[in-house]
C-alpha cells in the first residue's frame, strides 16, 4: 500500500513542470536543438499564420506523443518509425481539415507547410526520444512544452518580421501615416526568408547572453 502511494507521482511534480518549462529556454527546439528551422523561416512573415502554425504543431506534438506513449509497448522496434509516421500523418490531416474548415485564409497562406508538419523534426524527435520511453502523462506535457517552445520562437520572429517588414502587428498598421510621409519605408528584406534566419540568430545571441549555461566550453 505504502509503496503504491510512493510510486504515484503528483500530476504537476517538479519533474513534470520541468518537462513543460525546459523546452521554452534551456532545450528550446529551435534555438538550442536547431530543429524545425524550415517552417520557422517559411511561415513567419506575418504574425497570424505563425500563431496558427504554433498552435497546430503544439497540438500535433502533444497528441502524437500521447498516442505513441500508449502504444509504446506494443510497437515492434523495427517498424516504429513507420508507426510514428502513420500517427503523425493522421493527426496532420485532421489539423489540415480543421484549418480549412474554420480559418480558410490562413490555411491558404500556410499552404504546403501544414502538410509538412509531418516532416517537422521536432515531432519525430520527441516521439523517438521521449514518448517511446515514457508514460502518457509526462509525454503529453513534453509534447505541449516542445510545441510551446517552438511556437514562442515562431511568434517572436513573426512579431519583428511583420513589424519591420510590413509595418503592422497581426494585420493592424502600427506605424503612423506621418512616418511614411517623412520618408520611412518598410524593410523589404524582412519579408524574405533569409532575414528570418538572421532574426533566429539574434534570438540565439540574446538567449545565450542571458543563459550562460548554453555557451559551449572550449
Amino acid at each position, binding site marked *: 500500500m505504502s509503496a503504491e502511494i510512493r510510486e504515484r507521482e503528483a500530476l504537476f511534480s517538479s519533474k513534470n513542470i520541468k518537462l513543460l518549462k525546459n523546452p521554452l529556454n534551456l532545450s528550446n527546439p529551435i534555438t538550442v536543438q536547431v530543429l524545425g528551422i524550415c517552417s520557422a523561416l517559411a511561415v513567419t512573415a506575418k504574425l497570424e499564420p505563425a500563431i496558427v502554425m504554433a498552435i497546430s504543431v503544439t497540438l500535433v506534438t502533444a497528441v502524437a506523443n500521447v498516442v505513441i506513449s500508449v502504444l509504446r509497448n506494443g510497437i515492434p522496434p523495427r517498424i516504429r518509425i513507420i508507426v510514428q509516421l502513420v500517427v503523425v500523418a493522421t493527426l496532420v490531416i485532421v489539423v489540415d481539415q480543421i484549418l480549412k474548415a474554420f480559418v480558410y485564409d490562413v490555411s491558404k497562406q500556410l499552404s504546403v507547410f501544414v502538410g509538412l508538419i509531418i516532416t517537422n523534426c521536432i515531432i519525430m524527435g520527441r516521439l523517438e526520444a521521449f514518448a517511446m520511453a515514457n508514460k502518457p502523462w509526462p509525454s503529453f506535457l513534453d509534447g505541449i512544452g516542445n510545441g510551446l517552445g517552438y511556437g514562442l520562437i515562431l511568434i517572436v520572429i513573426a512579431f519583428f518580421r511583420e513589424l519591420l517588414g510590413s509595418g503592422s502587428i497581426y494585420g493592424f498598421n502600427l506605424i503612423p501615416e506621418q512616418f511614411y510621409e517623412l*520618408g520611412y519605408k518598410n524593410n523589404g*528584406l524582412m519579408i524574405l526568408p533569409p532575414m528570418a534566419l538572421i532574426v533566429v540568430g539574434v534570438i540565439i545571441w540574446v538567449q545565450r547572453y542571458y543563459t550562460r549555461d548554453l555557451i559551449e566550453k572550449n
Partner: protein
Amino acid sequence: MKALRKLLDKQKPHFEKGGRFEKFHSAFDSVETLLFVPDKVTYSGSHIRDAIDMKRTMIVVFISLVPALLFGMWNIGNQHFLSLGQVPELWTAFFYGFLKMLPIIIVSYVVGLGIEIIFAQIKGHEVNEGFFVSGLLIPMIVPPETPLWQVAIAVAFAVVFGKEVFGGTGMNIVNPALTARAFLFFAYPADMSGDKVWIADKLDAYSGATPLGNALVGNFDQIPSTYDMFMGFIPGSNGETSVLMILIGAAILLATGIGNWRIMLSVVVGGIVMALLFNWWGANKYMELPFYNHLIMGGFAFGAVFMATDPVTATQTKKGMYIYGFLIGAIAILIRVFNPAYPEGVMLSILLMNVFAPLIDHYVIESNIKKRLKRIKVLVSN
C-alpha cells in the same frame, strides 16, 4: 610633433587600467595609434614587426580611393546639371556633388565607428581600423540620393552582422561594405534600383537609366559611348562610374603591393571569358554586347579593384586567388545577362565567392598536400 607626443604621454595614464577614464581606453588607443606608429617590439622568439601595420595599410587603400571619390563628387553634380539642360562649371558641379555626398560619408563613419567602439569596449580589445576603408566604400557604392537613415541602418547591419558577430575585423566572412549594399538593395529596392535614383534631383522627363539599366530593358542604342563609360560621364553609384580613376587607384594599390594583382587580373579575365562566350552564343542582343563594354559598365571595375581584393574575405592561396577571381568575373556577367531581377551582378557574385573562399583554399591546400605525399612515396619506392 614632439608637443603632440608629450600631450599624449601626459594623458595616457588616465586611460590605462585603474585610470580615471579607463572606460575610454579603446577610443584613446585608436587615436594614439592613428597619430603615431606603435613602438611595441616583440620580446621573445625571432618575430619581426613590420612598421606597416593595419592602419598604414588602410591609409594606402584610402588614398587609392580618393581619385574615384573626387571624380564621383564631380560626376554627381555634372549629371544633375546635365539633366536640367545646363552645362555646369567644374567647381559648381563638384561642390554640388560634394554637398550631396558629405552627409552620407559622415553618417557612414559616425554609425560604423560608433558601433565598433562600443563592441571594442565591451569585448575589451582595441578599436580596429577595419572600418576606416569600409566607411568610405559604402558611400561610394550607393546612389547619390540614398536617404541618410537607410545608410545608417545598412551600416549598422553590416558592422554588426557582417563583422562583429564573427569576431570583428579580420574575422569576417563577407565584405562589410558589400553587406551594407546588399542590405539596402534587398530592403529598399525602390531607392536602390530603377532609373530614378542615379541622378540627384533630376527632371522627370530626363532619362536617368544607367548603361546596365538600358541594356537590361533592351535599349542598346541608348548605351553611352565606350569613351564616356570609360571616363565615367554616366549616371551610376557615387564612386563607381569612372574606370580611369579606378585604374589610378589600382595602380597605387599595386605599386605599394597592398592590392593583389592575381585577383584583379583573374576577375577581369573571368569577365572577358564569360562575355566572349556570350558573344559567341549570341542568342539575344544582350549577349552580343562587346566584351569590353561589360568591363566598363556598372560596378565591375570598382568591384574587381576594391571589393574582390579585400584580403580578409578573399582566398589566401595563390592558386585559390585565380579560381576565386575568375569565378567572380564570370558569375557577375552571368547574372547581368541572365537574371532580369538584378541588373548588376558584381555585388552578388563577390558576396557569393566570399562565402566560397575558405572552401577553395581548403581544396588548394589539400591538393598540395597530396602532391607532396606522392612525391615522398616516389622517393621511398625508388
